């Protein structure tokens, strides 16, 4: 019996021992459906929480994030200040909500920009090849040689401290990643006969690229965006934690953590809540990205 199962050698057969009754098979199936969706559901829930906090934040925030309440300095969570206050008497919840907005702006902004530029470079390089492709790919090699955070730090020395500057620094880090992924799928697609056929019936390069190559090669790139946004949010927070990110007083989750460190033994909420907010967002993007990768890209790209 076992021999037969192993003969058929498919994964399904290996997982479902012979002789399983209908009921237990059903239980197994529903567990698998739940398992497959558990990560997606958890991810979407966390992501919605994070995005809603950023979007609705200005409407629901109990206090203006920059207003000082001299009578409520370093107040513990509760009452008028659900997350407590900082050493200047500012409401921590409101500051975290503003910080989430910065995280979202940098995360979406930087990845949208690098997706646009990276995908375009990868598309053109992969399709036309030649000297342009070689040059672009060498430049990309150079950019990926730097540890991401170190390159961001180096770029921040010459950029200013606005949200757009931080987004630009992070976008530069992600251009080569999107360019490489897009290029390798474009190379695969260009080898297909339908591309050859389209060219043979006289379609222009632009039409071939935009109508045929792009739609068929972009999915692997899109899958990476959610994971890239989570990394971008982490890098933004790390930069502001090091004091190299968005200039104060604009609240950023990383900077809130740095501010809280001096008080953490007596006012631990000052480090707990900002980090928790950050983790919720990054975890959400990672979970969604992971289940996207699972569904759309069965070969699973690591990293």
């Amino acid at each position: 019996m076992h021999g037969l199962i192993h003969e058929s050698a498919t994964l399904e057969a290996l997982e479902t021992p012979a002789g399983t009754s209908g009921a237990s098979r059903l239980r197994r199936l529903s567990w698998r459906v739940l398992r497959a969706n558990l990560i997606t559901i958890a991810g979407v829930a966390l992501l919605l929480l994070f995005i809603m906090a950023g979007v609705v934040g200005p409407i629901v925030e109990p206090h203006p994030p920059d207003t000082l309440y001299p009578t409520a300095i370093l107040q513990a969570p509760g009452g008028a200040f659900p997350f407590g206050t900082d050493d200047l008497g500012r409401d921590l919840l409101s500051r975290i909500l503003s910080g989430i907005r910065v995280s979202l702006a940098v995360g979406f902004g930087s990845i949208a920009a690098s997706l646009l530029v990276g995908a375009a470079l990868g598309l053109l390089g992969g399709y036309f090849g030649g000297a342009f492709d070689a040059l672009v790919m060498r430049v990309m090699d150079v950019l990926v040689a730097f540890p991401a955070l170190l390159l961001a730090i180096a770029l921040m020395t010459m950029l200013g401290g606005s949200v757009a500057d931080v987004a630009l620094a992070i976008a530069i880090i992600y251009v080569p990643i999107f360019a490489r992924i897009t290029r390798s799928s474009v190379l695969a697609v260009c080898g297909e006969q339908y591309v050859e056929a389209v060219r043979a019936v006289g379609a222009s390069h632009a039409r071939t690229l935009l109508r045929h190559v792009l739609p068929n090669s972009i999915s692997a790139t899109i899958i990476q965006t959610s994971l890239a946004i989570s990394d971008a949010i982490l890098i933004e927070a790390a930069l502001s934690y090091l004091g190299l990110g968005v200039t104060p007083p604009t609240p950023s989750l990383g900077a809130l953590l740095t501010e809280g460190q001096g008080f953490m033994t007596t006012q631990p909420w000052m480090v707990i809540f900002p980090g928790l907010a950050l983790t919720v967002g990054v975890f959400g993007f990672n979970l969604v990205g992971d289940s996207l990768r699972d569904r759309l890209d069965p070969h699973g790209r690591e990293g």
Partner: protein
Amino acid sequence: MRTYIISRLLLAVPTLFGVSVVAFLTIHLIPGNIVEVMLGTRTDVTPQQVAELNRLYGIDTPLWRQYLLWAGNILHADLGFSLRTGLPVVTLLGSALGVTAELTVLAVLIALLVAVPAGVWTAVRRNGPGDVAARLLGLLGLSIPAFWLGTLLILAVSIYLPWLSSFSFVPFLQSPARNLETMILPACTLGLGLASIILRLTRSAMLEVLHKDYLRTARAKGLRGSRVLAKHALRNALLPVITIVGLQIGYLLGGAVIIENVFTLPGVGRLVVQAIEQRDYPLVQSVVFVVAALVIVVNLLVDLCYAWVDPRIRYS
């Protein structure tokens, strides 16, 4: 093998050149120049003195000449001097690299120790509750910001293990025990993200080999399950895992920058952040270049080792 090595070495040369240009330009495109930055708002310097300083730091020449001078010096292992301390960059970098190297090696060891057995286990129990839990934990490990986790660990230690809470760094040669005591928390923090990556890799590599014919053969000839796993499956699955761990050096060094600043360890990450705070741009430029060059060299070595172990790579 020889042609493969030569071609890979030749490919690394333009990349190193590009890296040096980027490191040079990011620092030289800052608003204002080094001398202006150094003088700040001081008004007690004459224009002659400014010109003298400009000449001393070589910024009165065109940008390309400055680059050639700097790059030429690097080829002679001369990384210049730190503006603030006057010490040679080589000296500062040497001691900092030692600390960072120890931190990363410890982090890799901890991550391997935890994640490889966990990866094997989840692959064997594929789709079970433990597998799902491990996958969630792995993603959580990648999501927790290292500087937050580090901060919480410091907080926890100061509350629950107050006698441990001095984090002043002690060099390994001075007192190995005290050194490891201060390094263990930072190494665990840095190792967590890597452990998540290794867990995923080990799991997928194991899944790939688990239904290979040679495993069935091993089982068919009557070997125990654990022995088949350890000697036949893991050994073959581990090779790509180790390779990819080697290629994570950039990720680890980036993480080390943060961890060293959380735990105030005198490594490369702390050096570069302090240099930026003090606007010590020659130091920043050289450290950024050396770290990127290090990443290129380590990646190259890992690739070559892999090609040596697995000849299929060379011909693909």
